[in-house]
């Protein structure tokens, strides 16, 4: 549909974007891999030279790594569980004939626009603080001892905050998918006398399956990199109780200035993300042709 000239032009026009992204993707990644095989510490200049698999052995061998890996999985899994189930429920609810749908949508979507550090601080100080947080007040109202959430349940607390941020995203996408299920299709099902539960099971759920897949995959990408929420609330602690892989790399590389070990952790994070990415690309790629 285009002439040779147009195509040549097109290639030129695409070049800046492609070149920039290529550099952005390749140069730092190659450097990370390079560093990961080096002895390289910013505070100990004596530490130099090729490290072999030393950094990997150090990072992966450390108990903190196992814990960070488990925490990462718990964090991603927990948030996904809450947001997908909660999101489906909320989407179905908002799709009912109710008063004030427009305002409700706005209320529900709002948490997604709250920047991560603010979300974390509101929860940390306004809600989960044992002294003056709202949950503390609530516990006291029932005569219970207030819980020091971040000390006692650090990872769970982070999960709650992140789930609060992402629940709107899941809801909004599932609601959009639900609303694209045409009124006629539903009427037809209603005419057939399908009971509400069957309608959900056989018509609505299959229609939403694709949207749910997309929600899961996209959220996973973002959730693997959760950082600010941890930085602002627990700082990864107590100990490593709320450190995920992303935060571990930050701790090792930037806070402890161990470039080599931090890079090895970074490479591991890239590998994990790529495994997830392959699935996402497949799902999104299919929709490209449609």
């Amino acid at each position: 549909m285009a002439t040779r000239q147009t195509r040549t032009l097109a290639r030129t026009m695409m070049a800046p974007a492609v070149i920039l992204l290529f550099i952005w993707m390749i140069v730092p990644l190659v450097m990370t891999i390079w560093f990961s095989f080096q002895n390289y510490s910013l505070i100990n200049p004596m530490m130099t030279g090729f490290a072999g698999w030393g950094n990997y052995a150090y990072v992966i061998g450390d108990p903190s790594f196992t814990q960070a890996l488990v925490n990462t999985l718990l964090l991603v899994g927990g948030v996904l569980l809450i947001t997908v189930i909660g999101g489906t429920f909320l989407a179905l609810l908002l799709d009912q004939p109710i008063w004030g749908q427009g305002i409700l949508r706005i209320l529900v979507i709002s948490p997604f626009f709250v920047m991560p550090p603010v979300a974390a601080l509101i929860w940390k100080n306004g809600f989960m603080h044992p002294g003056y947080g709202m949950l503390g007040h609530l516990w006291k109202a029932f005569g219970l001892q207030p819980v020091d959430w971040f000390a006692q349940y650090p990872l769970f607390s982070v999960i709650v905050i992140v789930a609060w941020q992402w629940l709107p995203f899941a809801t909004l996408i599932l609601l959009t998918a639900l609303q694209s299920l045409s009124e006629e299709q539903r009427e037809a099902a209603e005419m057939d006398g399908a009971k509400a539960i069957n309608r959900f099971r056989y018509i609505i759920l299959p229609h939403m399956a694709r949207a749910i897949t997309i929600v899961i995959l996209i959220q996973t990408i973002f959730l693997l990199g959760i950082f600010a929420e941890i930085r602002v609330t627990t700082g990864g602690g107590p100990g490593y109780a709320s450190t995920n892989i992303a935060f571990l790399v930050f701790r090792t590389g930037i806070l402890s200035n161990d470039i080599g070990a931090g890079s090895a952790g970074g490479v591991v994070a890239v590998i994990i993300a790529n495994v997830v990415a392959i699935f996402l690309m497949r799902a999104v790629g299919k929709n490209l042709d449609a």
Partner: protein
Amino acid sequence: MARTASVQTKIGFTILAWAVALLLFSPILWTIVTAFKTEAEAIAAPPTFLPQTFTLENFADVQGRSDYIKHAWNSILVSVGSTLLGLVIAIPAAWSMAFAPTKRTKDILMWMLSTKMMPAVGVLIPIYLIFRDLRLLDTVHGLTLIMTLINLPIIIWMLYTYFKEIPVDILEAARMDGAELYDEIVHVLVPMAVPGIASTLLLNVILAWNEAFWTITLTSGRAGTLTAFISSFSSPQGLFLAKLSAASLLAIAPILLLGWFSQKQLVRGLTFGAVK
């Protein structure tokens, strides 16, 4: 309306929906009311709902102590700057992919998407070192550059899906009318795609505004954006509940308003056009 629910059902669902929505909104609501309370009232037990003594002092304090305006200005520079820069790079690229596709176009699009999946921590250390050596650490332009790169794939993808909806006939008509490429893009394509470009702009300003990995790791005082500014409140000694709320409110209010306007585009942008 096709579904004629009985009034009772509607009342029931309405109450339930409002209860859940308010519960989800309560942290934001709490921030709003607390921002106008005195510090003493903010930590009073039992808590008050509406401020008993309404005060604007917190906002003045926040500015006085930590220079809210400077950080907000940095946020605006970085989010708007990176989005505009991204658009300038992305519009020609999206034009190419939408109107002169080749066999490889789809692969390039997928590859661009894949750069988005690179975890930031995987490249944090080299970027940190490069920035340190190039003296880009804690600079607004350094941060703008990074923000442009991380959002470029989304900008290209969104523009691509919007451009695909424009009939190629009209661009061909422009070519027949004597338009060179520049005129075709500036006088025909861009004006026709204004709604799509505006949505793209909006969503990316929001994403850049809320970005909290690179802003925290690459800035300290000078080029700090609002995300970095708020994070500095995490240390206990800086903690004053009412002031924290005031600062938080200031940081999220502009984007909350923008966000409400761009719900639909958000879906399309964040799912790479897979859900519309």
